[in-house]
């Protein structure tokens, strides 16, 4: 299968993320609905009033494997879903920039919304990824963490 015909496209990348190429990839002739989620760097966090950037660290092979499992699980739970893209930044990401993109294409909007919501919820709990918050005067690991769980239990 080529990338164009595969139902799954996962990536872990230090490069800027853009939605339009992923939406164009995901849109199939039978699809009438594409839902996306972009996580973006906020100017504050639970611990810091002024956040200027996030910095993500991962193990790329393990993260890619888990991203692929999340996409597969979404298509198992919503069989009409035609395509799922899950792309996550690593390294430093500046304020306002996207850190993660979820793109789900389906014939109808109900399953596109539901599967999109599932993917970001599952990704946050099951993909090995750690973020540092950069703020005036320093940086620290985020305290907004949860134990990593298998994709089946998301």
């Amino acid at each position, binding site marked *: 299968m080529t990338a164009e015909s595969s139902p799954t496209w996962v990536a872990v990348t230090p490069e800027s993320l853009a939605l339009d190429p992923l939406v164009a990839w995901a849109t199939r002739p039978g699809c009438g609905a594409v839902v996306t989620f972009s996580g973006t760097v906020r100017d504050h966090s639970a611990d810091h009033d002024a956040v200027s950037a996030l910095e993500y*660290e991962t*193990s790329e092979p393990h993260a890619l494997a888990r991203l692929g499992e999340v996409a597969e699980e979404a298509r198992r739970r919503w069989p009409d879903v035609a395509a799922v893209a899950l792309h*996550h930044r690593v390294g430093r990401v500046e304020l306002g920039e996207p850190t*993660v993109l979820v793109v789900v294409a389906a014939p109808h909007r109900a399953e596109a919304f539901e599967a999109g919501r599932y993917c970001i919820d599952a990704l*946050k709990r099951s*993909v*090995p990824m*750690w973020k540092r918050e950069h703020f005036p005067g320093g940086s620290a*690991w985020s305290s907004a963490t949860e134990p*990593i769980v298998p994709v089946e239990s998301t």
Partner: protein
Amino acid sequence: MARLVLLGPAHEAAGVREDLVEGDTVEAVLALASARYGEAFAAVLATSQVWVNGEPAAATSPVADYDEVAVLPPVSGG
């Protein structure tokens, strides 16, 4: 020897990202690692999950030469 991979806060607490450690079970490998890196690492380890070759593992899981033992603190992706 096992390949120990320390991720996120675990690598910071240990001071290294990867290491080679002896031991034929997960707990044996991690006991040596804790002795080597000290209390800050042991504290992170207490809340972490451990994978062997990418699969969740228990303390008693066997570890062979060249196996990857990864320490995964609570995650914060997305």
